[in-house]
C-alpha cells in the first residue's frame, strides 16, 4: 500500500538521531514559549529563522513544527493554572480549566488536556497522511482565480479570530492588506508607498508588525494596569491523575473535539482557534448539565483542547499541499522553506518526499514526546511562572528587541517596531483586534498577485470568479460564513432596537 510505504519512508527520516534531537528541541522550546505569555510561537520561530540557515531543510522544518505544536500544549498549561492563555487558541481552555484549578483539580485538567491533545494529534497525523495526496491532486486544478477565492475565504475565516465587532475585524483585515502593499510591485517592479526609504521598498517584515502589535502592545497594556493586578498568581497542583468519572465524561468530548478540529483545521484562516471555540459551543449544547460550564466542567477542557490540537495538525494540509499558509506560524514555515530553497506547493510531495513524509511522521513522534515531556514536568512549568512580572517583562522586551535586530542585522526594523508598538496600543484602546490585520498583511501580496493574474487571464472579466465552479464554491463558502457570523449579531441589534421602542 502506498500510504504504508510513504509512512515507512517518513519514519526512516524521522527516526535518525539528528532529526529526533531537533524534534525534541522544537517541542521543548515550543512548550517553553507556550508557557511564557507574550512570547508566542510566531515570535520564537521568527527569532530562530536566521539560525536555520545552518541546518538542513528537514531537521529545520521538523524543529519549527515541534515549536508550533509544543506551544499549543504549553499554552494550555498557563491557561489552566493562572488563567493566562499562553497563546490564542487556549483562550477557551482558560474558561473551565482555571475554574478546575481553583477547585484544586488542576492535575486532572492538565492531564486530560495533555492526553486529549495527544489523541487528537495522532488522529490529525493520520488524516494528513491519508488525505494530503488527494488534496494535492486537487491543488493542481487551482488557477489564479481559485487561489484568490480561497484567500478571500481564509480572510473571512480570520474574522472569527476577533471576538469583538465583526465590521471592525473586516476593517482590520483590509488595513492589513494595505500594509502589505508597502513593497515593490511584483509585476511592474514599481516601489509603492515606500517614501524613498530603501528598507521599505522590500516590504515590512512580518515579525516587526507581530512584535510591535502583540509583544510591545501587550506589555504596555499590562503595565497600564495597577501593580496588584499585574502579578501572576500560582497555586499548588495536587493530584495529577483524573478519576474514572473524569475519563468517562471527557472521552466523548475528546472524540467530538478531534473530529471537529480535523475538519476546521483544513480551512485556511480559521484553523485551530475556530475549532476550539466551535467545540466548546458544541459540548455546552450537548451536555445534560450546561450550567456547569464556566464553573469547572471537564468536558469544557477536554473538547476544545483536542479540537485545537487536531486543528493545529490538519492546518498543515493547506500549507503542504497548496503552499498557502493558513495562519501566521505557517507563513513563517513557508518562509523557512523558501530560505532552504524549496518552493512550497503541491510539488513538494514529489520533489522532496523524504521532507514531506518525514515532517508528517515527526508530528506523531513529537506528540508522543510532548506527552512524556509534559506530564512529569508540569511542576517545573509552574515554578517558572512564579517569576514576578517585573522580572518577566524586561526579559520579554529584550528578546523581542534582539530578534528584531537580527532580522536584517539592522536597527531600522527596531525603529519601525516602535511605530507598530504605538499602533498596537492605539488598537488596544480602540478595541480593534490586531490578529486579523496580521493575516491580511501576510496574504495581501499573494492575493493581489493572483487577482491580477486572474484578471489578465480572463481579459478583465470579474465574472470568472463566480463562473469557475471551484472558485464559485469557495466564494460561496465565504459568503455563508459571513452570514452565519453576522446572524447572532443582527439578532442582538434587533433586540436592542425593539427594547428601545418599548
Amino acid at each position, binding site marked *: 500500500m502506498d500510504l504504508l510505504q510513504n509512512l515507512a519512508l517518513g519514519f526512516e527520516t524521522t527516526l535518525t538521531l539528528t532529526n529526533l534531537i531537533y524534534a525534541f528541541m522544537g517541542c521543548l522550546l515550543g512548550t517553553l514559549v507556550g508557557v511564557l505569555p507574550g512570547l508566542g510561537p510566531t515570535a520564537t520561530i521568527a527569532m530562530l529563522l536566521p539560525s536555520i540557515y545552518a541546518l538542513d531543510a528537514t531537521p529545520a522544518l521538523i524543529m519549527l513544527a515541534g515549536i508550533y505544536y509544543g506551544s499549543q500544549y504549553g499554552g494550555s498549561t498557563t491557561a489552566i493554572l493562572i488563567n493566562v492563555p499562553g497563546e490564542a487558541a487556549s483562550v477557551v481552555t482558560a474558561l473551565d480549566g482555571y475554574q478546575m484549578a481553583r477547585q484544586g483539580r488542576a492535575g486532572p485538567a492538565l492531564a486530560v488536556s495533555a492526553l486529549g491533545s495527544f489523541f487528537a494529534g495522532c488522529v490529525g497525523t493520520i488524516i494528513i497522511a491519508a488525505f494530503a495526496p488527494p488534496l494535492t491532486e486537487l491543488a493542481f486544478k487551482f488557477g489564479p482565480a481559485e487561489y484568490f477565492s480561497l484567500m478571500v475565504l481564509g480572510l473571512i475565516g480570520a474574522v472569527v479570530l476577533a471576538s469583538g465587532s465583526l465590521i471592525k475585524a473586516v476593517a482590520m483585515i483590509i488595513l492589513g492588506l494595505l500594509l502589505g502593499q508597502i513593497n515593490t510591485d511584483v509585476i511592474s517592479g514599481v516601489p509603492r508607498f515606500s517614501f524613498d526609504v530603501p528598507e521599505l521598498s522590500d516590504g515590512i517584515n512580518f515579525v516587526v508588525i507581530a512584535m510591535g502589535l502583540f509583544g510591545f502592545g501587550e506589555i504596555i497594556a499590562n503595565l*497600564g494596569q495597577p501593580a496588584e493586578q499585574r502579578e501572576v498568581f500560582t497555586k499548588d497542583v495536587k493530584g495529577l491523575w483524573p478519576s474514572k468519572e473524569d475519563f468517562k465524561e471527557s472521552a466523548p468530548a475528546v472524540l467530538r473535539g478531534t473530529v471537529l478540529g480535523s475538519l476546521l483545521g483544513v480551512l485556511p484562516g480559521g484553523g485551530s482557534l475556530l475549532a476550539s471555540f466551535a467545540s466548546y459551543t458544541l459540548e455546552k449544547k450537548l451536555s445534560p448539565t450546561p450550567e456547569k460550564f464556566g464553573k469547572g466542567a471537564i468536558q469544557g477542557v477536554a473538547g476544545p483542547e483536542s479540537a485545537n490540537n487536531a486543528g493545529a495538525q490538519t492546518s498543515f494540509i493547506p500549507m503542504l499541499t497548496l503552499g498557502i499558509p493558513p495562519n501566521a506560524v505557517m507563513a513563517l514555515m513557508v518562509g523557512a522553506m523558501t530560505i532552504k530553497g524549496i518552493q512550497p506547493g503541491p510539488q513538494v510531495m514529489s520533489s522532496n518526499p523524504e521532507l514531506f513524509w518525514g515532517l508528517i511522521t515527526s508530528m506523531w513522534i513529537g506528540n508522543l514526546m510532548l506527552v512524556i515531556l509534559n506530564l512529569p514536568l508540569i511542576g517545573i512549568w509552574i515554578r517558572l511562572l512564579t517569576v514576578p512580572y517585573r522580572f518577566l517583562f524586561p526579559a520579554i522586551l529584550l528578546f523581542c528587541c534582539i530578534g528584531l535586530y537580527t532580522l536584517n542585522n539592522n536597527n531600522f526594523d527596531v525603529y519601525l517596531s516602535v511605530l507598530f508598538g504605538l499602533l498596537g496600543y492605539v488598537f488596544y484602546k480602540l478595541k480593534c483586534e490586531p490578529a486579523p490585520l496580521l493575516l491580511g498583511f501576510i496574504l495581501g501580496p499573494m492575493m493581489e498577485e493572483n487577482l491580477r493574474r486572474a484578471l489578465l487571464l480572463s481579459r478583465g472579466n470579474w465574472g470568472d470568479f463566480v463562473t469557475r465552479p471551484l472558485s464559485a464554491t469557495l466564494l460561496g463558502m465565504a459568503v455563508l460564513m459571513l452570514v452565519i457570523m453576522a446572524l447572532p449579531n443582527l439578532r442582538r441589534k434587533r433586540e436592542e432596537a425593539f427594547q428601545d421602542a418599548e
Partner: protein
Amino acid sequence: MKIKSQRDFVAGLAFIVVGLAFAWGATNYSFGSSARPGPGYFPFGLGIILAIIGAVITFEALTIETEDGEPIGDIAWRPLLIILGAVGVFGFLLPRAGMVISIPVLITMASAAAGRIRWLDVVILSVVLTLGSYMAFVRGLDLVIPVWPSFLQ
C-alpha cells in the same frame, strides 16, 4: 448629535483617513485597466473599501446605543512612552555600544516604566540577561550581534 461609542467613532474616522490616504497614494502609480491591472489597481480599490467601512463604523458609533458610551479611557502615558523609548534607544545603541551597554540601558528604562526602580533587581536582571543573551544568541545561535562598544574594537 451625541457620540454613542467614543471608541468606534475614533476608530471609524481613523479607517476613513487611512483608507483615503492609501487610495490617494495609489493614484501616483499606474492604475491600468481591468484586463491589465497596474500597480495602483489593488491598493486604490482596497483604500476606497476601507474608507467606506470606516464611514459605516463612524455612522454606527453615532446611532447605535451602547451601555456606557464606550469611552476610550485613560491612556497609560508612562509605560507607553518609556517602553517605546527604551526600544528606540536600544535600537540606536546596539550597533554603536554593543550588548554590554545597550542591554542594561534597556532593562533600566523598562523597569522605570513599571513604577519605582528597584536598583538591586535592575542590576541582577541586567547581569543575568546580558550574560544569558551572550551565551544563547552569540555563542549558541551564532548570530552577528555587536557585543562590545565599537570604539573598543
